[in-house]
């Protein structure tokens, strides 16, 4: 059985990386390797569990639903790459923490990344727009009201 793999390069959290990928290696698997996220805890910290939403060239995607080879040369940002190296959280992350919306360690990071995509497109969303945007990403454990208020608070904080 021939297992052909190629070397795939991309930029992850501002850092150029390179690793081997087979045709069916997902972006999530690739990122777990280059971010050295071997354990579930590390993958949670990077936002690679659950829906594993990351930014790819400025747009949110589910990393398990994109091939690593399709992301060759792309700019990727993971949840773990949002905070500055000194650990200072972005306003959006802070708002999620303050609203008590980081409820599930698996999917809350993906909610944050999805909300980031919304705020990039629409910096002043209405509550209804936020709710529509996040609707399909909310699992039974999450709290829609808290997530929506977190996004609205972050939008307001960025404006002031």
């Amino acid at each position, binding site marked *: 059985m021939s297992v052909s793999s190629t070397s795939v390069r991309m930029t992850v959290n501002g850092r150029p990386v390179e690793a081997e990928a087979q*045709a069916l290696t997902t972006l999530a698997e690739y990122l777990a390797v280059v971010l050295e996220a071997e354990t579930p805890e590390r993958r949670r910290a990077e936002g690679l569990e659950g829906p594993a939403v990351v930014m790819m060239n400025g747009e949110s995607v589910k990393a398990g639903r*994109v091939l690593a080879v399709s992301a060759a040369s792309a700019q990727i940002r993971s949840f773990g790459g949002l905070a500055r190296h000194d650990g200072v959280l972005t306003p959006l992350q802070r708002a999620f923490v303050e609203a008590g919306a980081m409820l599930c360690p698996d999917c809350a990071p993906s909610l944050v990344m999805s909300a980031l995509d919304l705020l990039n497109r629409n910096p002043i969303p209405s509550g209804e727009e936020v709710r529509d945007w996040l609707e399909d990403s909310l699992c039974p454990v999450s709290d829609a009201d808290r997530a929506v208020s977190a996004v609205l608070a972050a939008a307001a904080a960025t404006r002031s």
Partner: protein
Amino acid sequence: MAAPDHLRPSTLPEALEALKRPGARALAGGQALLPLLLDGSEQARSLVEIGHLAELRGLDRDEEAFFVGAGTRPVDVADTPVVWTLLPAFAEMAGAMGDPQFRNRATLGGALAENHPSSCWLAAALALEARIQTDRREFLAEEWTLGAFETPLEPGEALVGLRLRIPRRAGWARIRAGSGSGSPFPLASVFAVETREGAARLGVAGGRDGAFRWRAGEAALEESGFAPDSLAGLAPRSDGMSADERADAAHRALLAGRAAALAVARALEIRSAPGL
């Protein structure tokens, strides 16, 4: 099964050449195909990436029609102001389907090639008098579905895009299952159009053999006027509807009738502005 090769052609002719390889599959957004490849229920010897091809990415218009390239994503449709001006129902549909990450990856061509019987796209295409273009042929939207998941596409043939006629007005409505239903598709999705000539067209998703035009509903709208009341008490025949664990055929038919009335109501609320 060996891991497939991955090819990333930079032009459409190169992609068509690559698609001639035995066992080659086009990979657009991968939102339908990738899960199937990953769980082993579908195979490919070569994956030919096409979602990035500039030739498939257009969203152009002339006096009569919009041309939407097969590589166009829901987010591209929803974020294009001229679509909101001339065909707001289409933009509304694209901006509402699935979740944001899906809208950033999936493509129109992938949806038409997949031909899921509950697909909103073919329902819209039927209502909008679409012509579906491949690299070698053109089809009327009515000629597209040959049954659930069946299309006239031949091996190696690529969808290039859709030509949609700009209507006098159009509306879209869907009825969704509760969250956690296990399927991303709505239970009912109807695209309602009044053409510039005043004809009514209803594209209905959820047919047993794919999306279809609901002719009896169209006749009612033409006889009694383009208004939701004209469809009161009507529904497509249940023997033509698909059935699954979420809804049996009779229930789907009922929901399709309701969605059709909602779509007509929406068409009267949001006006296309064909003042070209």
